[in-house]
């Protein structure tokens, strides 16, 4: 069964590029260039995974997630951006995206990332791993919920390797654990990222809504 993908990006050229590159491996069921088009398009096309540009006129990727999530909780989002701003990326992740990659990613890696998202795992690019390490770095003044507000040593190690540019497979090899275990750690981090009440994360999310 092939993965059904919907592409949301305000750049026409980028959409057609992704369509052409991913079309060989995955089934592209539609694309959209605005938030409204995206919301209606996703409702009718019922994709498995949505490739979502973080920066778009009319509320950005976050608005799309907010609108779709309530109606179609089974649709998974992979954020795609050239943005370097941590608050944008963390904001989209906290809204519900299961991964974040930069647009410089190769077509092959992008296809692999889409599959991983479809399988229910999280996709952490080096940059996202760096953001998370940054946000969870240092000691929280008072972790409200230690299970959510702190990373374990192992999670930290995994994120460090990802930030250094290691693939999941290489991380597994380095730490002498299974690739599946790496994915478990990453998913756990994603959950913390989305649910944690850490001050920094909350602030980022809040800032994002204010923009």
């Amino acid at each position, binding site marked *: 069964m092939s993965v059904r993908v919907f592409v949301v990006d305000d750049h026409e050229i980028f959409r057609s590029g992704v369509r052409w590159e991913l079309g060989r491996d995955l089934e592209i069921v539609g694309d959209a260039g605005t938030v409204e088009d995206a919301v209606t398009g996703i409702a009718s096309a019922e994709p498995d995974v949505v490739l979502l540009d973080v920066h778009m006129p009319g509320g950005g990727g976050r608005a799309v997630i907010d609108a779709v999530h309530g109606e179609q909780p089974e649709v998974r989002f992979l954020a795609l951006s050239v943005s370097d701003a941590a608050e944008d990326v963390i904001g989209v992740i906290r809204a519900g995206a299961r991964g974040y990659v930069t647009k410089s990613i190769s077509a092959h890696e992008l296809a692999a990332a889409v599959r991983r998202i479809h399988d229910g795992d999280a996709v952490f690019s*080096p940059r996202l791993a*760096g953001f998370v*390490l940054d946000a969870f*770095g240092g000691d929280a003044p008072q972790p409200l919920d230690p299970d959510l507000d702190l990373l374990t040593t192992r999670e930290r190690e995994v994120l*460090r390797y990802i*930030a*250094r540019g290691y693939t999941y497979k*290489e991380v597994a090899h380095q730490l002498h654990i299974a690739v599946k275990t790496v994915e478990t750690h990453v998913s756990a981090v994603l959950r913390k990222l989305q649910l944690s009440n850490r001050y920094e994360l909350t602030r980022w999310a809040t800032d994002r809504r204010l923009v």
Partner: protein
Amino acid sequence: MRTMATVAPRMTRPSLRRSRSNRVIAGVAGGVAQHLGIDPLVVRVAFVGLTFAAGFGLVVYLLLWLLARVEPVDAAPETARRRLPRPTMRQVLGGILVVAGIGLLLWFTGFWFGEIMAWPVMLAAIGFAVLWARSGEEGSGRSIFGSRPLEAVLATRGSWTRLAIGAALILAGMAVFLAANTSLAAAGNMLLAVFVTLGGAALLAGPWIWRMGRELVEERNSRIRSEAHAEMAAHLHDSVLQTLALIQRSGTPREMVSLARTQERDLRAWLYGRAPALTGMRLRDAIDAMAGKIERSEQVSIEAVVVGDTELDPGLRALLAACGEATLNAARHSGVTDISVYVEVEPERVSAFVRDHGSGFDPAAVSDDRRGIADSIIGRMDRYGGSAEITSRPGGGPGGGTEVAIHLPRRAVREAAGVKQAS
């Protein structure tokens, strides 16, 4: 006492000249041996033997020293020539004066033992002079012997003879001294024995200790010099050599001019002590700027991730430069266009990782004239108390490629450990 070397006409039998190439003290014995055509060792033994006969040998030696001229420079074969410079003479004189001083001291403190003591003292003095001259010669030359003076003294041809003669003379002096003083008061005897032993040991070891001290100073100086040199080499490699490489590859004269101009500005700023434009920049911005610059110049894509941030200091600037060099290497030699740079600021240290999934290489097979890794990365971090290691697996693809890991203790930690901060 030194005479100017003059070119003497060749004779069938060499005239009596003090030898330049074959000398222990002043080349007298060597000259005599050359003149007579016999082994210099025989002459030396004769001199020493005659010296025991009421000092006759010594007197003859000193007379010949005064009267005979030094042989001309070009008479000595190039390989055997070993000039003893002026310090040797001074040191001999100094040695004699030291012994004379000790004698005077003994005299004033009531330990003067009469005429009979003159010979042992003189023997010790000559022995000291021989050893002193020896180490003086070593010390005045290159300091390649490191801090092992014993080895240094013994390293050269003929030094065993000197060592043996010097030590024998000193020991003989001590023996005569002790033998002649058995009649002294019992109380003084013990003191005397201790003093003589200490004095003898000082005479034997003094030059070595002195020499060791001087070597330490010299070694430190040369280390400072070589550090400055390495710093300069690293900088030139990163700047001028890189630019020259770029100029060779650049197509248009306009590009060349712009490269040359940029480089000139940079070099001028560095040479005349103006700090580069990095002052006031923080680590994150500096890493991003470095990545951006290499992305533009090398047409690669660099994923630069920085966790935490801090003010730049000289050590971090070195880390930044080493990191830039590693990134540039990855851009040029890995064969891939995606490079990951990860920098993390922790409370105790700052770490940087430059990773590519490229062709990799064997770090041991890199030739010595490629200064990039040795100077710009490893050497540079060493000088700031940090470290760098390179892991590379040839082959490429997943699992392969190269990673350069750079670690630097934070400033406070470095200062606590006494690592210098100067750039």
